[in-house]
């Protein structure tokens, strides 16, 4: 099974194809040395694809194009449990399984110009002019090493023939150039024919790459990748407030949020690796609405004192200024040098630092909290008499 959700109707809908490849049956066996030396098995991509599918199934809300279908392929073979539903076995992401799943997805996407098509891929990628996404059975023949790959560049070009005006591609894969593998680049094919010149040039078709050209993308062992977590955070914090008081994620706003959040990792999460930086490719004619929240999103706020050294000794508080009496507080934490991270709704807040055990003066300011993230710094007016051994750590 690859179709895990099918709510197809003849009206604008969102149709999703998600692929996560980790097992790579021919890579680790050593039967194809040219590949085995370069690429190994991965544990993160299927987790990433599942995380993306979970979010799509449980959270995606687009009144203009509600979820119509979800095709999911995972390697190694495993069961997928829909949020709140039963577990179903899903097909492995081999070339044989991906092609019919892609065809079904394309048929649905092609049904209405108002459709939103989403293609998510997580796994190995190699870029040399074209970007090749490696499927589970890549390297089945040592004479056609890139036979079971998706030539994303050609596939993207081919989707000009798709009527869906919004087409989003999420590519969570390395884009390194492989000197060894370019010799076989002719074997990689797109998933559909490329219309020569004619086609849907007006489509809003961004490609959200996890990293820039010729660079690597990273994933932690047995958990979704850095990029997938970043992408889902960006989806969860819409940045566009619309006239009807709803909040929207748009095709262009999504990349702005990704760029902003990339510089602010989630509290406790590792810093983004050197050499990885999300990039936008493709043709973007939008902005097209992808996801809508009918309530204010939670914003990741970081509060710190200046100088940073006094932050652990401060009692920090945020109080909403809208009369709701909402407030958040952190007691002094001498062993925690990091800023205070808290998630609060959009709005205006009084932010305050008090030093109950020290002779330091309090500090306060008013701050507007706006998605996707906000850093707030409270300048503490340190005078000479404050600089005693007990006052500073």
């Amino acid at each position: 099974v690859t179709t895990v959700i099918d709510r197809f109707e003849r009206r604008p809908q969102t149709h999703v194809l998600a692929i996560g490849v980790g097992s790579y049956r021919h890579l680790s066996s050593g039967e194809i040395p040219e590949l085995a030396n370069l690429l190994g098995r991965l544990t993160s991509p299927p987790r990433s694809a599942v995380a993306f599918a979970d979010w799509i199934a449980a959270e995606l809300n687009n009144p203009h194009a509600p979820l119509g279908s979800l095709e999911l392929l995972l390697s190694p073979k495993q069961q997928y449990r829909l949020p709140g539903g039963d577990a179903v076995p899903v097909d492995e992401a081999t070339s044989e399984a991906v092609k019919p799943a892609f065809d079904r997805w394309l048929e649905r996407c092609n049904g209405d110009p108002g459709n939103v098509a989403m293609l998510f891929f997580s796994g190995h990628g190699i870029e040399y002019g074209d970007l090749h996404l490696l499927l589970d059975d890549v390297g089945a023949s040592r004479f056609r090493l890139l036979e079971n790959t998706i030539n994303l560049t050609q596939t993207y070009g081919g989707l000009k023939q798709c009527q869906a005006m919004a087409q989003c591609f999420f590519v969570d894969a390395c884009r390194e150039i492989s000197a060894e593998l370019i010799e076989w680049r002719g074997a990689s094919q797109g998933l559909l024919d490329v219309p020569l010149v004619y086609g849907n040039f007006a489509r809003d078709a961004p490609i959200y790459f996890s990293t820039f050209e010729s660079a690597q993308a990273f994933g932690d062992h047995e958990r979704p990748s850095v990029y997938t977590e970043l992408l889902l955070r960006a989806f969860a914090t819409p940045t566009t407030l619309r006239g009807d008081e709803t909040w929207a994620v748009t095709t262009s706003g999504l990349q702005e949020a990704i760029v902003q959040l990339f510089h602010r990792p989630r509290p406790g999460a590792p810093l983004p690796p050197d050499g990885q930086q999300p990039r936008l490719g493709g043709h973007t004619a939008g902005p097209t609405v992808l996801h809508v929240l009918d309530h204010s999103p939670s914003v990741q706020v970081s509060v710190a004192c200046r100088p940073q050294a006094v932050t652990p000794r401060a009692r920090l508080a945020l109080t909403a200024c809208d009369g709701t009496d909402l407030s958040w507080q952190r007691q002094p934490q001498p062993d925690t040098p990091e800023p205070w991270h808290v998630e609060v709704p959009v709005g205006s807040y009084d932010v305050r630092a008090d030093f109950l055990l020290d002779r330091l003066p309090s500090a306060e300011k008013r701050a507007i909290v706006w998605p996707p993230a906000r850093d707030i710094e409270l300048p503490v007016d340190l005078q000479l008499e404050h600089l005693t051994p007990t006052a500073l750590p």
Partner: protein
Amino acid sequence: MTVTLPIRMPVDTGGAMVATEVIQAQRGVVARILLPVGEPATLRLPQGRFLLRIRPPGGPVSDHEMTVDTAEESLTVLLSADTDRLQQERQAALGEAFDGAWVRLWALEDAWREVPLPGKPELAEGVLRRLRLQLPLGRIHAIQLGGKRIPWRVAMLPPAPEVDVVITTTGTLGFDGGARLEARSGDGAVEALLGYMKSGQLDSARVVAPVVLEALHRATLLGADGLLPAVAVGYFLLRTSDQAGPFDWMERLSEQAGWLPDAAIILASSLLRRQPDPDLGRARSLLVQAAQVGLPVYRDGLGLAFEGLRALASGTSDDPRTDGALAAVEPFARAADWRQHLASFRGHSPAEPTFSAILGVPTSAVVTIPGKRHVRVQRAGAQQANLAAAETIVVTRRSDYIDFSVTSQGPSEEAERVAEVRVLMGGLRPRLYQRSGPSLSYGDGREPVPREVRRAMRLDARVNDDLVEHLETNLRLE
């Protein structure tokens, strides 16, 4: 009163402009504006509290709170770029990457030629950091950077009378060898637009685009003032389809800036996208013309030319002009560094893109063996055809290896298609690493030969006089 707002810029960008959102807690984004860096700017805002969210291209966002106490008060802000701290941190970690770094300036005349650097390079802590170049319009220029640890690479330069080249560290060794090369014109709005397009921040790009478009419309002729805005807006519109072209100014751009391949590529791409009747014939002519002129300055141009020619070449039975143009563009597209907004690639020179990394310092001690007249080309499965008169072999001595380029031009298309070439060097086997031509095959030195092709090979060996003498004696084609 002027409020100074510190922001962090990813690179040292004098004269830059940044897109800024003015946000109110209850109303959301109430304005999107463009602010200069390093110069005071006056904002007129109603009474209230505001969040200024400043978005440098590709860099971290800077948030600043503002309070306007009286209605219609004007507020003067000064964005102060803090690039030094960032650079110093990286410089400390990777300063040694610049040991032995060098730059060369190239100009495209009838062919690419190295030209003297106008002006004196600026050094910081003994390291080359900045070049301010004054360049004549009407000719394409390229800058080349390399070093002992920095792979040689070439970046096209903006078509502007003044270009600022900045060399910084990237923070990691990686693909660039730790060195970043940025070249900017003095037009802050144009550079901001290109920077946002590079990082994919199209909402921010949409803040800048009207400013650049206005500058374009103000320019009466497509001279220095209008050329850059036209090229930047052209690529922006092709990326976003915010407005459907082609436009009159694209025609004028193509007519008046025939020396700049980007001009023809922008018009051609717009003609290809014209609905419902794309003008394939004219687009093809323009793309072929662009390829004959040279390499586009911007990476979007390189991508559009490659994409357009590939589509046109696969859509027609046999068109030598299109095939030839595609063959000329493809090696650059394959070698391109798509992270940059200027067309950039690893290469020996602007005419020689390479896939592999070349390290070292260019040497004038180049060994050339011209015209080995006794070479022969053997036709596959047929009798031998002596094409010796059309063959030339050039051997270039590099620091740690030797490059061979073999240019072959057959008497007829049929002969060229079936010819096979084997390079023999007295027992030494070179590695074929690159060639021009629409298809690629590697292996033991055998390959089909297109009509006109220059094959490049490399012998990875420590170069010494004995080896050169050995090659002079034994090098031949069979």
